[in-house]
């Protein structure tokens, strides 16, 4: 493997690692019943290591917005405002 491909691979793995950590956080938030325990812990050490100051705030906002439109793989989309939304032409898987 040449140097360029190696650097690209390492970079993409780090990105996927960071996003994977944030996705796990979203799962924890949903399992906890969206009680705010995950969304509000913006500056916990683990989150800062995963996503930094800006990324952690972005993740919290995404989870907050996602609480209203929860899309679960292999499942029917549930929503607090299901009647108000345009039906998606595709739900994940």
């Amino acid at each position: 493997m040449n140097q360029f491909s190696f650097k690209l691979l390492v970079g993409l793995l780090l990105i996927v690692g960071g996003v994977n950590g944030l996705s796990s956080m979203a799962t924890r938030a949903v399992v906890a019943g969206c009680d705010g325990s995950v969304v509000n812990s913006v500056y916990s050490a683990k989150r800062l290591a995963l996503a930094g100051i800006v990324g952690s705030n972005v993740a919290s906002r995404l989870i907050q917005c996602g609480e209203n439109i929860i899309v679960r793989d292999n499942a029917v989309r549930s929503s607090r405002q299901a009647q108000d939304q345009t039906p998606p032409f595709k739900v994940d898987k």
Partner: protein
Amino acid sequence: MLSVVRQQLPGINIMYKLVMIVLLAFLMLGITGLGVFIVMYSLSTMRIGLDLAASHGISAINSSRLGGVAIVVTFLGLLIGMAMLGPYNLGILWDATFLNLWSTIILCVLLGAVEDFRADLLSPHFRLVAKLLAFGIFLWVTPAMVPQSIGVPLMDCIFAEPAFAWALCTLFCVGFINACNMADGANGLFPGIATIVIGVLFLEYGRPAEGALLVVCLMFLIFNVISGRFFLGDTGSYGLGAVIACYGLLGVAQGDFSAGFMASLLSYPCVELLVSMIRRARKGQSPLRPDNGHLHNRLHKFYEPKFKSRVISNSMTGLTISFFSSGVCLVIYLSGLLSIRSNAWFCVLALQAVLYLIVYYRLKRAEPEVSTDAAFGLT
């Protein structure tokens, strides 16, 4: 010993900048930011996208124009990761409007990518017609994207007629993308404006696409401003321009914010394009002919003697303009002084235009109108 150290000085300088970027990337975006940085750095070292310093109005060092490609790669990495990893995704929702919208954006990105990888393969006229067709068809099949009024009495009469509104919106989108390409002339100028606009859109809507784009644009801004070795290129300016034009238009059409707010946020590219076209027309030149008479060229000439490093004067030029155009709007927006639905934003736009003209005429002309036709492949 001293000569050895001197020989190593450029290397040390670059290492110093890279360490600064890594620290900022980790502080702002954690390991995700480090990943984005590594992808951007590896793409910036590719020989294929190398741009000579002479082909840019301001840059004094050879740089890569694959910044847009890096943004696309890292954006897709983030978005695919968000969609695929974990049993719940971060709010990704599919909608027919967004399918059309992103198809148009992807087409613009591809047009830019062809130019970045193989300069002059497509003529400027072909690209212009392709963009006109793409946006024309997109807005025709998605009438919900076309605003019915923009809060300006005379213009509202035109927008009341759907065919005129469609034609105006198509022209606006294509013109805006070209304005973004033109504004990509100093470190941090268009990346700074794009980061602010996408940040505002993310704060308003909280959609994952804007979240991922914000992260990527912020990282690119840090890399671009500190290293000065990475430009957006046509891929980035066409792509980000198309994203901003489409999302902005959608927001105005839905009544989420006023046209004045978007115009004020994007004042620099819009005013600069208009002033440049008028300047060229007054000289009897084609309004589309590239030159070095932009405000950022003049401001750079003003900054150049004040800083030892050319990269700092270049970056200061971009950051100053992006702060005093879009940055001011961001401050007003965050402070809540004006509602984003207010038409009073047109007054802010008028003030920004007046400030632009005052600064423009006070600064000495950067250099005698040296044509960059060769650089743009128009000769």
